[in-house]
């Protein structure tokens, strides 16, 4: 895992939380997008987190909720959020 202030082109930062983080065994990675990785849903497959993003998992891009098929841009922070249990 590397922490760089300005990630190079084609790199996104991926974050996992809570149960999802523990299941995957990591919480934060800088990932170089492979050819054909255009969205958070594609990234989910590239990272071997599963086939499709489960409907219970929400996606945030740059700390705002987003649809899993939203196109990614280099430098984006993509987070996969298990069901929320705050309050």
């Amino acid at each position: 895992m590397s922490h760089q202030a300005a990630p190079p082109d084609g790199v996104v930062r991926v974050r996992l939380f809570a149960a999802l983080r523990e299941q995957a065994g990591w919480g934060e990675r800088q990932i170089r997008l492979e050819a054909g990785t255009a969205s958070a849903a594609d990234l989910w497959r590239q990272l071997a987190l599963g086939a499709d993003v489960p409907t219970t998992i929400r996606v945030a891009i740059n700390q705002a909720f987003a649809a899993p098929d939203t196109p990614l841009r280099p430098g984006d922070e993509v987070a996969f959020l298990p069901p929320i249990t705050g309050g």
Partner: protein
Amino acid sequence: MPTPSPAGHPIVVRLLEAPFQPLELLDAWQRSREPSMAVQAAESHFIGRVRPTTASGAPLEALELEHYPGMSEAQLQFLAEACAARHGAGAVLVAHRVGRIAPGEAIVLVAVQADRRGPALRCVQELLEDLKHHAPFWKREWSGGSGTWVAGNTPL
């Protein structure tokens, strides 16, 4: 100390890593409101505290609150602003604990001032539901030395 929103509805959001006294926070908030605004005739609060048992009834050692730093503050601010605008509320305070929280400690505080009781009461109720479902917080119950992620929110 968070700054009030530039929008018409002053919103204060606090994310707290240490135990807090809800009434002390309310007192500071009320004092901060008094000089700036006309009297708001209605004010409603909600305080949520950690139960002494887990969802399955075992004694709870602590509740752990994980969050998404940055996004959690932004979402609380966004949800509070939206709720205030929807109900025409005059001011909103949201405080939420993160980290390890002991049974009996306060975990969440929501307070709303409005000109009438309806908007104040409804905004507290809706904001509480909103943040339970749309702010990135995750609860883990610690009991008997092991932690279990909470699967869902407690029923209304």
